[in-house]
Each structure stands twice: as C-alpha cells, then as structure tokens.
C-alpha cells in the first residue's frame, strides 16, 4: 500500500512537471541582422516594421526586406550611456496619416546637460517630414542614464511617455515639480489633456499621469489597462498597473538594493504607494513588454511577455485577471533581448541587443 502511494506521488509529480514545461515548438528566422543596438520595435503589418537603433537611426523593414539606408531627416540624438534614439510608436491612424512618434535623448544647446525629447513626424517613403517637437522632459540632467523613453497610446488617443529618474535624481521621482521618474500624458500634438490627475494642482506639472517610477522601459495598453515595466536597481524590477495619479513608490519603497550595496529604502510597502503585480529579485534587466492576444501560439494567448537582458531571455507571465499566476522562461538560447512585439499574424518579433543586433521572427513549427 505504501509502495503504491509512493508511485502515485511520483506519477503526479512527473505529470505536473510536464504540464508546467513549455511544450510549444517554434523556430527562429532572422529578418534583419548587423544592426547597431536595435532598441524599440513598431509593427505596421506582417511585412513592414519600423525600429530604432540607439546610435541614432530609424530603420525600416519594408516588404520583408531591411532597407539599407536609415530613414532620413531624423533628429540629432545624444548617443551616450543609455541615451540615443529610443522609443518609437505609430499613430493609431498610421495607415492613413503615416505619423509616428520618436523618443530620444538630446543635448541642450550650449550646455553640458541633456534631456528626453519626443517628436511627431510623418514618414514619407524613407524620410521624416513635418517634424514637430511635442515633449521635452523638465528639468534637464547631466547624466546619460535612466531615460525611460517608451510610449503607448491610450484608448482616447492621448499619448503616455515614460520618464526615468536620471540615476542621480532618484528622490525627485517623489516630487511633482519635475519629470524624473514620471509617466506623462499628452495629446498627440503636444498639447495637454484637461483631465490629467494633477491638472489643477499648482505644485505639480500638469503632464504627470503617475509618479514614483525608476526607469520604465515597457508600457502597454491592453483593453484599456495600462501595464508598466521598470528596471529596478540590484533586484526590484517591477510590473505595475498604471493608474492616474498613483504613486509607485520609487525610491521610498523598493524590493531592490543600490548598486553600491547599500539599502535604498528599508521599506517595501507603504500606505499610498502602489505594489507591483510582479517583481524580480535578483534583477532580470527587463527591456520591453507585450501582451500576446493572437492565436498563432494558442498556449500563449493572454500572457504578458517581458524581454530581458540578464540573462537574455523572455519571461512569459500567465495572467488571471490582473494577477500573475505563473512565470515561464522562453527564448533563452539567444543573446540579450532588447524589445519584443508581435505581428498581426501572431508571429513574435525579438530584437537582440548590442552592435550586431538582430531582429528575429518566432513562428510555430
């Protein structure tokens, strides 16, 4: 009887292991290679993709082929540290108006400081036209780290822009008179929506949507829910559900430690500060995020995917409501993965980091 029980337990354990493992059979196809630090992907359709290279270029894959010449007319960027040509997002009406938005770090004229800027431009053939600066983070900084620089459109057509804490300015993430460690919300022409949470507050900048962020490098809008992904220091990378006016705690509460080994804050939670729905200790260096709602990989439908650089892999997170119930590591046989997106046909796109970076399409076998 005891022997049978033992066998039963073993059988259940083995079955559970099989059920938990990723049994999806897929293959990689490199669709662009020899890239200089690809950073952010924007998908037009199954065969047309736009992406940034941190060194300052905007590139196109047109009809499945990488155009050798970068898009002309892009603004001059400050390519230093973590700065450069960063986020790219398409206008919700891109198919008709060909408008896109670029986030990048730029040096201030005549000074040694720099800041995060966002422009709106029309993509015509392989050139940017009608360029208009719609956002410039305030104040400028003298560091070239922690820009954030990812963007997403909300359902009402307003644009959310993530801003990092600039590394040296982390305490400013808790005050509302600056853009360090904030997610801001503007209209697509750069004007301010009237219903921002701090609009009538004379002590706060009216663009601020949420605050207390460190270096948010992933932001998605799924059915009206905004999910934000941010780098922690040594540990403490987070996924948060972003809501207007909320304080996400950095650096007053954190699950991470400073790079110099010291305690940033002894607190991990506090009243009035939001908890992440997921955090990682040690850090995985999360870089990009998507919520997969296609059917090409039916086992993965409804999961959040987080690309990570330490080690290079993708974390697939199973959602139940707004709760993450399971984490799976996939695509861990590539190098550092800088961004992730999916095509309308359900294939997954990965951008690998560094000089010699690639864009890889993942399809089922």
């Amino acid at each position, binding site marked *: 009887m005891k022997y049978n029980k033992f066998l039963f337990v073993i059988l259940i354990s083995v079955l559970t292991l099989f059920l938990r493992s990723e049994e999806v059979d897929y293959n990689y196809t490199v669709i662009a290679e020899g890239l200089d630090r690809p950073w952010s992907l924007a998908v037009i359709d199954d065969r047309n993709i736009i992406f940034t290279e941190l060194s300052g270029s905007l590139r196109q894959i047109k009809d499945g082929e990488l155009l050798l010449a970068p898009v002309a007319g892009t603004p001059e960027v400050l390519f*230093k*540290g973590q700065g450069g040509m960063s986020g790219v997002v398409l206008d919700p009406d891109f198919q008709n108006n060909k408008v896109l938005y670029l986030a990048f770090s730029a040096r201030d004229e005549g000074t040694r400081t720099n800041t995060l800027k966002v422009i709106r431009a029309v993509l015509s053939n392989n050139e940017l036209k009608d360029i208009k600066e719609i956002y410039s983070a305030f104040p400028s900084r*003298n*560091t*070239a*780290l922690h820009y954030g620089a990812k963007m997403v459109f909300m359902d009402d057509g307003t644009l959310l822009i993530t801003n990092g804490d600039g*590394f*040296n300015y*982390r*305490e400013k993430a*808790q005050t509302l008179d600056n853009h360090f460690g904030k997610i801001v919300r503007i209209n697509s022409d750069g004007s301010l929506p009237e219903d921002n949470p701090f609009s009538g507050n004379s002590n706060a900048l009216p663009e601020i949507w949420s605050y207390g962020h460190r270096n948010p490098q992933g932001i998605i809008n799924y059915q009206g829910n905004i999910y934000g992904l941010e780098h922690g220091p*040594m540990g403490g990378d987070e996924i948060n559900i972003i809501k207007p006016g909320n304080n996400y705690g950095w650096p*007053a509460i954190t699950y991470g*430690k*400073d*790079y*110099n*080994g*010291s*305690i*940033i*804050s*002894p*607190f991990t939670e*506090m009243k009035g500060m939001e908890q992440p729905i997921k955090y990682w200790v040690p850090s995985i260096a999360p870089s990009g995020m998507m919520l997969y709602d296609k059917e090409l990989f039916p086992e993965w439908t409804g999961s959040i995917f987080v690309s990570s650089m330490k080690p290079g892999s993708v974390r697939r997170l199973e959602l139940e409501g707004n709760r993450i119930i399971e984490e799976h590591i996939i695509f861990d046989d590539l190098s550092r993965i800088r961004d992730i997106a999916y095509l309308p046909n359900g294939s997954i796109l990965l951008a690998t980091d560094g000089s010699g970076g690639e864009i890889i399409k993942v399809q089922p076998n």
Partner: protein
Amino acid sequence: MIRTFFDLLLAALVVTILVVVVSTSSNLLWLSSLNMPIDFNLVTSTFLKDVVGMNFNSQIPLYLLISIPLILFLFCTKLISRKIWMNRTFPYVLAGGMSMLFLMIFLPFALDNLEPISGSRTNIGKLCMTMCGCLGGYIYSLMQTSKGENEI
C-alpha cells in the same frame, strides 16, 4: 613602516564607517521627510546592513574605494612634511579631506557624471564626506603623535 601602514588602514576604516553613517543618515532623513516611520532600531539595522552591503555586496568595496586615495594622500603628506619643520596635524586633516574631495570629483568624472555614493549627491553630502576625510586625517595624525612623530 608596518605601524604606519596599519595606522593608514585604520584611518581608512574609520573614514569608511563615517561615510556609511553619512550615506545611511541622508537616506533615512529623506525617507523621514516623507513621513516614513524611522525609529532607532531601523536606523541601527540599516546602518549595519549598509556597512556589510557597501563593503561586501558592491562591485567595488567602499573600503577599497576610500583607502586608495586616502592612503595615497596621507602617505604623500607624511613624506612631504618630513622635509618641513611643522606641526603635521593640519596637513593630515587637509590631506584626508582632499582625498575624499578627490574621490567625489573623480568618480563622476570617470563614470559619466554618475554619483555612485548616494550620500554625496548633494552639496551638503559632499561637505559631510569631506569632513569624514578630515576626521580620518586627524585620527591618523593622533596615531602618529602617539608615536612621537608629530612634535614640532
């Protein structure tokens, strides 16, 4: 010579502990300004964790980071002051302070303006760190005096 070396290491140890005190205090003072509940136990435990963390869990141990310029500055002062007939307390105090100032200027210069020691990001923080160096220099001078080296 061994005694001098030991004294230098001891002075560096004192400065390291003082720097951790400043760094931890500035952090906790800021948290306290947000009305976070900071009590004596938390201060003590955070300080002890910082002493261990900043010396054993960082990429470059703080003690090593502080020791190199401090020992260099104090040792050079010792060599120079041998040639000059003077009270050495002030030169050692100055050398200690200068070593910390050098560290706070050198680190951002080498790291693209990043200031890895969070306590030194403000001017008051920089001043406190410099004072820590001065105190280290003073302690070194006291140790030298006890050996009878500091007499005019």
